[in-house]
């Protein structure tokens, strides 16, 4: 009878083996994931709910949040345009070194954020080879927002591309060919044939990129400068709040960050379910 447990799920009577497995998994997830998250919520409420409300109203918190969002948006714009182009090229084009090109996309995923910040420092720091160039343009990259932007762009690079590739691979080329044969211009073909199936993947890619971008810490710590207000993203706000013994503020900001990220990804999930249901 235990074979049935494995093969046919749903509603049937389960053997004790299956129940044990379910219980162990649930226990593991509760211990590993739920307990720490609960402890942060507890920490945020340690001085009572009014204190939490006060902390949530601090302008510096929302300023840092605004900066995180702004940077994330800028990153999303670039990833949407250039990331989509890259995904398209990887699927539809054939050229020498394409396999390597494909592998290179995953590099940002493999690099420690500290190293990312360091690479940017090597390039844009005072002794970096790009320093004279940006100095001439009167742009500050290291220890300023552009540096944080570049670091965030780097670490979130793979997400959009990896979301798009499988969808582009599954595109029905017959439709595209048909449209072109009937005289549709490139833009029309793109907008009416290619784009619609990609929509969901794009939304998901945007969501993942945004969550990743807003949560970046290590690289920002190295390249950011830690100036309260100017280069303080939400993660840096949390870091500074911890240093200033403002624990409720730190935990409150952490909860907001987590909440927003979860919201974004859930929204994307919902869209995906809606489109597959249709």
């Amino acid at each position, binding site marked *: 009878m235990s074979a049935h447990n494995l093969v046919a799920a749903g509603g049937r009577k389960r053997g004790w083996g299956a129940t044990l497995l379910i219980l162990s998994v649930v226990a593991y997830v509760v211990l590993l994931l739920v307990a720490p998250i609960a402890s942060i919520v507890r920490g945020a409420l340690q001085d009572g709910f009014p204190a939490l409300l006060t902390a949530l109203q601090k302008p510096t918190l929302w300023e840092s949040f605004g900066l995180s969002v702004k940077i994330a948006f800028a990153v999303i714009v670039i990833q949407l*345009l250039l990331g989509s182009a890259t995904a398209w090229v990887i699927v539809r084009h054939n050229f020498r070194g394409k396999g390597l090109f494909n592998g290179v996309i995953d590099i940002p995923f493999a690099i420690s954020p500290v190293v990312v910040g360091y690479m940017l*420092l090597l390039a844009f720091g005072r*002794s970096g080879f790009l320093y004279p160039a940006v100095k001439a343009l009167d742009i500050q990259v290291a220890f300023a927002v552009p540096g944080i*932007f570049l670091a965030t762009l780097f670490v979130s690079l793979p997400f959009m591309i990896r979301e798009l590739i499988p969808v582009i691979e599954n595109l029905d080329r017959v439709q595209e060919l048909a449209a072109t044969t009937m005289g549709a211009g490139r833009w029309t073909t793109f907008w009416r044939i290619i784009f619609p199936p990609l929509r969901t993947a794009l939304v998901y890619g945007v969501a993942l990129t945004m969550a990743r971008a807003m949560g970046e810490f290590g690289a920002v710590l190295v390249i950011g*400068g830690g100036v309260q207000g100017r280069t303080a993203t939400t993660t840096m706000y949390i870091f500074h709040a911890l240093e200033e013994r403002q624990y409720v503020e730190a935990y409150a900001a952490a909860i907001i960050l987590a909440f927003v990220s979860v919201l974004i990804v859930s929204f994307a999930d919902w869209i995906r379910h809606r489109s597959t249901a249709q």
Partner: protein
Amino acid sequence: MNASKSLVLAAFVSLNLGACGTGGSPTDPANFRLVLAANTTPREAFSEIIPLFQLQWLEQTGQTVAFEESYQGSGAQSRAVVEGFEADIVVLSLEADLARVVDSGLITHDWKAVGANGMMSNSVVAFAVRAGNPLGINDWADLAREDVEVLTPNPSTSGGAMWNMLALYGAALRGHVDSIPADDPVAAKEFLKLVLRNVTVMDDSARDSITNYEQGVGDVALTYENEVVIGWGAGYDYELVIPSSTILIENPVAVVDEYVDEHGTREVAEAFVEFLFTREVQEILARHGLRSVNPDVAASNSGQYAEVQDLFTIEFFGGWAQAREEIFGEEGIFSTAILEVQGGE
């Protein structure tokens, strides 16, 4: 291709509106913007000092000054300034970190000629112990006991960590550690190793170290005297123990010539640094637990500070350049001690 390129440019430009390194952008209401790069310790003191200066400057010149402050471990901060963090003023934990900025060519004036030899404040290396001192930690020798867990920051990033190690090693060399003979570098290093064995966490900065201690980690934290005072101000209940022999921590401050000239903020910046040496500010610093460099202020606050039996300075090690090489260099005493302690638990 053109559309995406112009979008990139637009993104860059819009982000730069807030990131120009000039003294004041058109959208900025203040006449001047001063960027202060400091170590973590004087954070609370500056939250009082800066508004006072802004008021004073306004009264004197009718101009407004906006401040942007950054607080990090002293080593990390000086490194950032050297690498391009355009700070107008630096306040650091130790002279060696300031020397790094000087060596990079960013500071060209004689900063020691300003104020009290360029030092904004003093403190001493001390111990923070739990209320009631349950483990009876009273001097250096107690740190080497088997049942004691020690917190001290990482010398790579934290200036405070370097002061701690120098105080420890110096006290041993000077014969103020029980059972360690004076002027015996080998014995002193053995003592250092014993204490290092007891270290449980090495945080990035002096501040991170003491806040970790406040969360209940460790039995004793090696720290600045004034960090303990600030902790008291934040409501934490731990005790301060001044060892029999310790090092005088001297915190330098300086205007960064290259950046103030670029930003056009030299006059304001220099005024601010001078302001730091006035009696008013020194009193504020004293309130935050720092020992004043102003002899009058120090005298009037003397009741606040325990007298140190044997107080020595960096000169005991022949100055910072020598200390950095001999103690923290690749073959230095601390570096090799860490290696030899390896294995731990």
